[in-house]
């Protein structure tokens, strides 16, 4: 059977933050564009649009990715987690609370990307060293904080999460 070649507006079925979602998008639209402009999920930001700042980080099928470097149509059948899904109805995620208490943000535009990326780190490595935090987050640029308080917030959250686990 020959594979269908899709063009124009494509119907895509996907899962976002646990909810089944349908959208129409052209293949040239990125996942980031769809999240922000079609679905109103504007927490992921466009900082560079070429994979060099991490402001658009989301988790796709369990893997941290830059949503600017994913085509909208590639989301078909995938499960996507965005910053909007990090807090629960019961309250903030420990990382979010830790960012607030550690003053780990200034302008805040990189913050969603950092929290999504840090959450992916802590799910893989609940007890990272400072170096491992800095290594994992090297793809997330922050121009305001100098990273100090962000790194401390991630380590602090990791400690809280281990204590609660």
């Amino acid at each position, binding site marked *: *059977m*020959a*594979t*269908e*070649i*899709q*063009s124009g507006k*494509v119907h895509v079925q996907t899962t976002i933050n646990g909810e089944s979602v349908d959208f129409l998008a*052209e*293949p*040239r639209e*990125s996942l980031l564009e769809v999240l922000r402009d079609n679905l109103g999920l504007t927490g992921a930001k466009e900082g560079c*649009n*070429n*994979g*060099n700042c*991490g402001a658009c*980080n989301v988790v*796709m099928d369990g*893997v*941290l*990715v*830059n949503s600017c*470097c*994913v*085509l909208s*149509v*590639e989301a*078909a059948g995938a499960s996507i987690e965005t910053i909007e899904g990090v807090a629960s109805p019961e309250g903030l995620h420990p990382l979010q609370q830790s960012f607030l208490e550690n003053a780990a943000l200034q302008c805040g535009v990189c913050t969603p990307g950092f929290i999504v*990326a840090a959450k*992916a*780190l802590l799910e893989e490595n609940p007890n990272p060293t400072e170096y491992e935090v800095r*290594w*994992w*987050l*090297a*793809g*997330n640029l922050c121009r305001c904080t100098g990273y100090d308080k962000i790194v401390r917030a991630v380590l602090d959250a990791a400690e809280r999460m281990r204590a609660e686990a």
Partner: protein
Amino acid sequence: MRAIQYAAPSTVEDAVAILAEHGSDARMLAGGTDLIVQVREDARDTGVFVDAKQIPELMELSVNADGSTTLGAAVPCYRLYNDAQFTASYPAVVDAARIIGSTGIQGRASVGGNLCNSGPAGDTIPPLIVHSAVCNIAGPDGARTVAVEDFCTAPGRNVLADGELLVSLTLPKPPAGSGSHYLRFIPRNEMDIAVVGAGASLELDGDSITAARVSLGAVAPTPLFVQAAGDALIGLTADEDSFAVAADIARDAASPIDDMRGTIAHRKQLSYVLTQRALRGARARAQGGSPTNGH
């Protein structure tokens, strides 16, 4: 971005058919971290994106009966460093997989994609060369194989003809007593394109070198297999004097350009220094240790 078409075939045959039909307007899409950005930024004009990730052969990572490993062309980098056996066998490739872009990039970017992008500074290419990897190519006229060092032909160009795709790489089983290392010089500590990259593999019998391969990135139009540097080491003791001999050859083989990422003088110097450091790291691994000179 220009309007594009997208297809996600589930077999190599379907992919070949689409590529053959659309010729140079079509390209395989693996992680997309180069291709999507290049088309968006008008650096490449591709109208048909053929997604590699639904094709089982392109997502395969397995050890063959003869001890060699098959690495599907679209396997993302993170799967390599999360695979203990692959990491133990091909550490130089994993060195590269860990430093390509960011964690988020490594969730998508693949070794095969890096090779097909055929950039002179592609980080995975010198490690593949020092591991004597072979490209398994499918096309309208059937399958063929090409050594990695013969794959790239010019910046952004390679031996793939219209209708052909890279299915996988075969990496021979590393001999006992061998080790490899890849490192690059970048101005930052992450998130950069190599100013120079160097890969080395060594096979040792005690302190004596029985086989060696050296490869450099970003010092020529294509990643460079510096065969003479490896050959010069055979029969020598794996020590600083020997490494200096190989590093001299590597520096002489390098023919870099001045560009926004580096100068000729700096790249020549780095070719020497990084070759030494790659050899030291390969020796450490051949002896059961790990490299100490940076990422």
